[in-house]
């Protein structure tokens, strides 16, 4: 009995896992193309969100604003927004009949990037605000008495909170990378264009190609877990 026959005799899930590992090790072009596109889209969405989320957090944590608690509460509540609901709202905005239909963004990677960016903004804002608020307020006073300007004081607080800010960014990336609703509604799961890991897993499972689904799921999980492990090491060393 050769190896193939032995494998066939095994449980179909184990068989799927073995074939999945073979797909990954052999460098299957489709697997790598989907992974690459997923990484590009989720990194872009997270990075774009950080451009405004971190300054918003700095304002919420370090300035006295009227209604600050309400705004923070709103961002906290939005962390759990269902991705399908968000996908639907953005679909209505970006579709041809919608207010942004003119830009023809639907079913492009840009649409998924925008969607993921909106999705992770509450995560980055809430986590970063908490991280900045946890820094000893005397750090700011110390910087002030050593001659720092307002911006330099904000920068030193941000620096002291960097482990928390990094956690916010990684949590946001993980959420973007693992979500399905936005990617399927705005991207449409078009092969070689908008097919990302989560949409591909859903499709392949539906089509019965369990080994490809498992291969993609393994990649998804390993990236998310590797990032979490790196983050915990980084936090410990800082």
């Amino acid at each position, binding site marked *: 009995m050769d190896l193939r026959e032995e494998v066939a005799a095994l449980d179909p899930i184990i068989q799927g896992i073995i074939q999945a590992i073979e797909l990954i090790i052999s460098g299957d072009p489709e697997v790598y193309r989907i992974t690459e596109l997923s990484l590009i889209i989720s990194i872009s969405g997270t990075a774009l969100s950080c451009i405004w989320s971190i300054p918003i957090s700095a304002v919420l944590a370090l300035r006295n604003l009227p209604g600050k608690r309400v705004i923070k509460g709103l961002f906290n509540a939005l962390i759990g927004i269902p991705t399908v609901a968000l996908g639907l709202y953005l679909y209505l905005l970006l579709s041809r009949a919608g207010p942004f239909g003119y830009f023809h963004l639907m079913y492009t990677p840009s649409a998924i990037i925008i969607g993921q960016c909106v999705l992770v903004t509450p995560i980055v804002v809430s986590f970063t605000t908490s991280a900045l608020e946890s820094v*000893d307020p*005397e*750090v700011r*006073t*110390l*910087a*002030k*008495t*050593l*001659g*720092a*300007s307002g911006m*330099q004081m904000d920068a*030193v607080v941000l*620096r*002291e909170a960097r482990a928390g800010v990094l956690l916010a960014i990684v949590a946001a990336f993980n959420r973007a990378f693992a979500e399905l609703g936005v990617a399927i509604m705005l991207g449409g799961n078009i092969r070689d264009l908008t097919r990302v890991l989560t949409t591909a897993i859903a499709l392949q499972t539906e089509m019965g190609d369990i080994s490809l689904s498992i291969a993609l799921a393994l990649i998804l999980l390993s990236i998310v877990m590797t990032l979490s492990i790196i983050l915990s090491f980084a936090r410990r060393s*800082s």
Partner: protein
Amino acid sequence: MISRLETLNVSKRYDHLQALDNVNIGVLSGRIVSIVGVNGAGKTTLLKILAGLDTMNEGKILVDGREASQEELRACSTMVFQKSIMFSGSVYDNVAYGLRVQHVQSGKLRERVLSALRIVNLENFEKRKANKLSSGEQQRVAIARALVIERDVLLIDEPTANLDPTNATIIEQGIKEAANSRILLLSTHNLSQARRLSERIVHLHKGCIIEENDTSSFFANPRDERTKFFLDGELNF
């Protein structure tokens, strides 16, 4: 260089608490003045106001006879806090912070940082993580961090509270060295330290100055009854 710092009728209230009440003191460059008093007397509040880190409700602060704004006070002074806060990073990064925000060029910056570290006997500590140091060593870093920016007014709040004698001695030596060319105000409830370091002593009690005298007279012939009680270690006066 600033040669005189004065407060004129400085008062500060926190809700229903009168933290400072008509405080008038004058300090000359090159002379250490100690502010003594029990906890809650208003020593830290006074130093924070002089450092431009807190506002006052009434009164003026004069620098060389001219009224100074909060920004002007911040520009000419620096304060060392009782609880030494360290920025994350190395001892060198901590001491260099005040120079970096002023964009001092790197060669000069290094020279000044190493010289400040020498004053507090931390020559070989530059690469150590500041947060990993003992509290005494951290307080020495805090003194070096304040000295390196060469401000005319140095305000030090309880520099050796809860420190061992070795660290306390090193810090006192650093303070003496720093006082040569500066206005130096020291808040302490360590009376023997005030006696060792300062030329004048101000006794602050419940936000009011109840005695100001040169050091020898303060200890030998206190004028106020409450100062006598304070020197005798009485708790209720």
